[in-house]
């Protein structure tokens, strides 16, 4: 096709220009990450004086051991909290979204499209505009400053329900469900062993996006938590960053901690390219 034809063509001016623009854009996107990588090898003095990276001033090991020992290993605690919030939250959220999306796809009941309209309205409510009202409710019921205060709101994702419905429509042929019913499977059993299995790629897509948004969430934990042993990494790094002007030794900790905090997601996005592309495509193309 046209792609093959283009590859056979020699490098024309316009081809050079197109790829040069893309290269500049990629460099702009990767530069801050590259800077973070080099900055994590410097101590506070070298970082603040803009020393270039050098082998004899390579302090990554020192920074890492400081990171893990400061405040009795608080960073490790934050990291574990983030893994808990994002891992448990995204797994449960993906299940809840798939169950709801499956029900909306498979069954007909009164008021279904109205219900779906309400879910779509939920997509448009700004998350941060909700965080404060959630805090007010949580303080009323005594959940403020607990794991639940951060975990429960992360289980709700109206956009995930929309995605799940689209994925179910795409992955689950009605005939298969009919066959399961004829074999005598109950409705819930059919969902569990047939529907859920067929929509597994959709499950991973929703999981990945929810994991990212929980891992990256800052406002909700900022509002809900005051005990720093419950903090996720994002909030913990912020709390250290606010101390850097008084205690410059926190600079390398914030930088090295930031580097470690982005590794899981960057790795996941590199490995699971098919899944995030599927999610963005389903959201974009009608």
């Amino acid at each position, binding site marked *: 096709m046209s792609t093959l034809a283009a590859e056979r063509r020699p490098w024309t001016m316009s081809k050079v220009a197109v790829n040069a623009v893309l290269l500049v854009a990629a460099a702009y996107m990767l530069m801050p990450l590259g800077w973070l990588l080099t900055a994590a090898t410097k101590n506070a003095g070298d970082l603040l004086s803009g020393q270039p990276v050098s082998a004899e001033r390579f302090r990554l090991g020192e920074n890492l051991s400081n990171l893990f020992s400061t405040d009795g290993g608080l960073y490790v605690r934050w990291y574990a909290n983030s893994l808990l919030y994002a891992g448990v939250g995204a797994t449960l959220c993906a299940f809840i979204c798939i169950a709801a999306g499956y029900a909306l796809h498979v069954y007909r009941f009164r008021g279904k499209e109205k219900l779906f309209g309400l879910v779509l309205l939920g997509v448009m409510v700004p998350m941060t505009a909700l965080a404060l*009202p959630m805090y007010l409710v949580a303080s009323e019921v005594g959940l403020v400053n607990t794991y639940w205060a951060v975990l429960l709101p992360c289980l709700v994702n109206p956009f995930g329900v929309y995605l799940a419905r689209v994925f179910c429509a795409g992955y689950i042929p009605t005939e298969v469900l009919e066959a399961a019913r004829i074999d005598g499977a109950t409705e819930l059993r059919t969902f569990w062993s047939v529907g859920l299995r067929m929509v597994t790629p959709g499950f991973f897509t929703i999981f990945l996006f929810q994991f990212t948004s929980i891992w990256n969430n800052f406002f909700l934990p900022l509002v809900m938590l005051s005990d720093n042993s419950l903090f996720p990494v994002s909030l913990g790094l912020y709390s250290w960053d606010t101390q850097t002007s008084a205690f410059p030794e926190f600079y390398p900790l914030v930088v090295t901690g930031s580097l470690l905090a982005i590794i899981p997601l960057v790795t996941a996005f590199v490995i699971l390219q098919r899944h995030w592309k599927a999610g963005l495509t389903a959201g974009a193309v009608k």
Partner: protein
Amino acid sequence: MTTVATRPDTARAAAPRRRGRPPGHSGAAGVLLAPFMVLFTACTLIPIGYAVHLSLYSERHSGLGFGVAETVFTGFGNYSRALADPAFVSGFANVAKYCALYIPVMIGISLLLALLLDSALAKARHFFQLALFLPHAVPGIIAALIWVYLYAPGISPVLDAMDSMGFQIDILGHPLPAVVNMAAWQWIGYNMVIFYAALQAIPREILEAAEVDGASPLRTALSIKIPLIRASLLTVVMFTVIGALQLFTEPMILQGSAPSVDSSWTPNMYVFTAAFQRNDNGLAAAGSVLLALVAAGLSFAVTRFGRSRAARAEGGMS
């Protein structure tokens, strides 16, 4: 509401296959929907209702401010207090300025990159998609932290390089472009992938027909490709506006290094300060409700505008 309008289409398209469903399955539907509906009610509907309720009350201190505070119904008192506060209003002005700069720049660049990647000339498409998308995997707070270092003279290798070329830029003195750059860095790639997916979904026959008719690639992009992905464009604009109104993390981090960013630089920061520094929950709730209303109004306006444009375009074609 393009999102709302286009999304159910997908589901409805599958509807004819669902005929002949035996009765008696509503129980299963209820069980499967219940977890979501319970959590949605607890974490979205109730907080909104409670915020509206709280926004109608104020705490009054008797006499000189000593003694026990009592909660009194003040109607729209909190709303008029918020709207009369220059700090709250100037937050909206900052967000408006931010949108005026950010939306054209971010959408323009993502669209340009998507069109370039979609052109037959681009090489290494997978690499470019991944490289441009990666900033989205970085938490907003960490992105803001990195950029604050890159804005700091003496620390930033970028500023040093520019300085040695004779350019001296005081980015920290200009918070608006500083925040726009942080946000653009995080969202250009994400939206580029959405546009690219929409472009890839355009039927190839249409593009081949344009080529046969002798349309240049630029002409094809402007008069065929962009109009055909209008639905995606509108969705992205809508989510961008909603996101812009929530602006919080980036200016919050910038606050430490840029003195002109104060604690009510955006409406969200104002609400946060009202709740946690002034302990004025009524005012904070009123601010939240106003913020949500503006977001809803704007997304309604964007989609309304988009839909009428689309209807006109379709009318013109037939």
